[in-house]
């Protein structure tokens, strides 16, 4: 199936967020794709948006079924979460389970004033009552396909599909 160009979608998402997002909002990318998107958005949008990173492995709801994934990254939030406006950033929003885990983890660092959600692609298929505040593109994708964001050495982002649901 035809997927949108990741670079154009990021630019469209940045346009949507510019002026809408709080000037001092802090961006938190969910590893790994969300981290790349968060860095790009922070660079494209005016304002002071420090970037933090979250790895939700310790908060996932499928640990009993799948165990711990091999490469867990360090969650790094180089700012106060208490009282902050946080924009969680992910590459693909599907069931909403990663976002649920990320919100739970965030609150273990403090009580944010507000949490928003920005995603590059919203592919539908939600299993939890979670909706993005900002979405770059909305797509309908067959359940047996995953949408994967990858980054080339020069930093260019691309969207591809892979067999096997996310």
């Amino acid at each position, binding site marked *: 199936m035809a997927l949108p160009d990741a670079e154009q979608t990021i630019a469209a998402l940045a346009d949507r967020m510019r002026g809408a997002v709080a000037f001092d909002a802090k961006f938190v990318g969910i590893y790994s794709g969300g981290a790349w998107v968060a860095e790009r958005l922070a660079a494209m949008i005016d304002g002071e948006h420090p970037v933090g990173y979250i*790895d939700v*492995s*310790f*908060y996932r709801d499928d*640990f009993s079924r*799948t*165990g*711990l994934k*091999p*490469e*867990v*990254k*360090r*969650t*790094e939030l180089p700012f106060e979460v*208490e009282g902050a406006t946080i924009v969680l950033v992910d590459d693909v929003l599907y069931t909403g389970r990663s976002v649920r885990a990320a919100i*739970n*983890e965030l*609150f*273990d*660092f*403090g009580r944010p004033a507000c949490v928003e959600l920005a995603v590059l692609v919203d592919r539908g298929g939600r299993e939890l009552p979670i909706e993005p505040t900002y979405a770059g593109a909305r797509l309908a994708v067959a359940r047996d396909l995953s949408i994967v964001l990858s980054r080339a050495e020069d930093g260019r982002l691309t969207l591809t599909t892979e067999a096997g649901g996310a």
Partner: protein
Amino acid sequence: MRNPQLNAQGELTHLLTLEGLPAEVIVRILDTAVPFASIAERDVKKVPLLRGRSVFNLFFENSTRTRTTFEIAAKRLSADVINLNIGFSSTSKGETLLDTVDNLVAMNADMFVVRHSQSGAPHLIAAHLNRTGRLHVHVVNAGDGRHQHPTQGLLDLFTIRHYKKDFRALTVGIVGDVLHSRVARSLIHGLTTLGTPEVRAIGPKTLLPTDLQALGVQVYNDTHSGLAGCDVVVMLRLQNERMKGALLPSVGEYFKHYGLTPEKLALAKPDAIVMHPGPMNRGVEIDSAVADGERSVIFSQVTFGIAVRMAVLSILAGN
């Protein structure tokens, strides 16, 4: 026969020994401990990973530090922790080890952290659980006799990697009572598996095992030549009971030859780190000036030990 630590898929399901454990399994534990180490810096020093699981600390032999750090590790993973000092209860009434285990499994234990004075006790429990098909119950060896203390070995490896980055360029000196030390045994296996080119055992002949060369370890009876050029110096505790067995002339004599003083440490590399598994005997194997000096990473070892045990518990629980 399959390695009893691994399941049919080759995943780690019990941690009994570092001997024969593939490098990728060790590296995965060390890598997983890195994000766990930063949890201590959060407002809420806890993650929900093992919520609803029960970890039984089964200590047939006393150990405050190891038991406490396992307890903290399990609690930071949100597991329920039950501490049993078995030495004072059932076994003294005649119950067998495996009957004790079966009773605790009937209480829905998910994991056993076992310390025992008999080498092989954790192995026996793990084999019993495997044989009876209770594959969801995991065993961690927290020290068995003279055999192994794998999580101590792993936290030593984590500490060395933290300060020295690459094992493949290191000279590591292990000083003291290697013969009776399960800590040394675990560390030697780990260092060798991760490709450390030079591992030295330094101590009096009476306290060094005879099979060291077979493990690829260089043997030194003289501390001065043994410490020369070391990147890492690991001091072992001199167990008081060894004095009684005529293995050593006196504490003073031991300290003179093998105790780590600033003068002896000066023979190692200028940026060498000093480690000790604890508890320390100041003035016996280590001088206070070294133990409290800037090259000592002894208290970092304790802190890292919690993260490493969190990694072990969560990897096992997921397999």
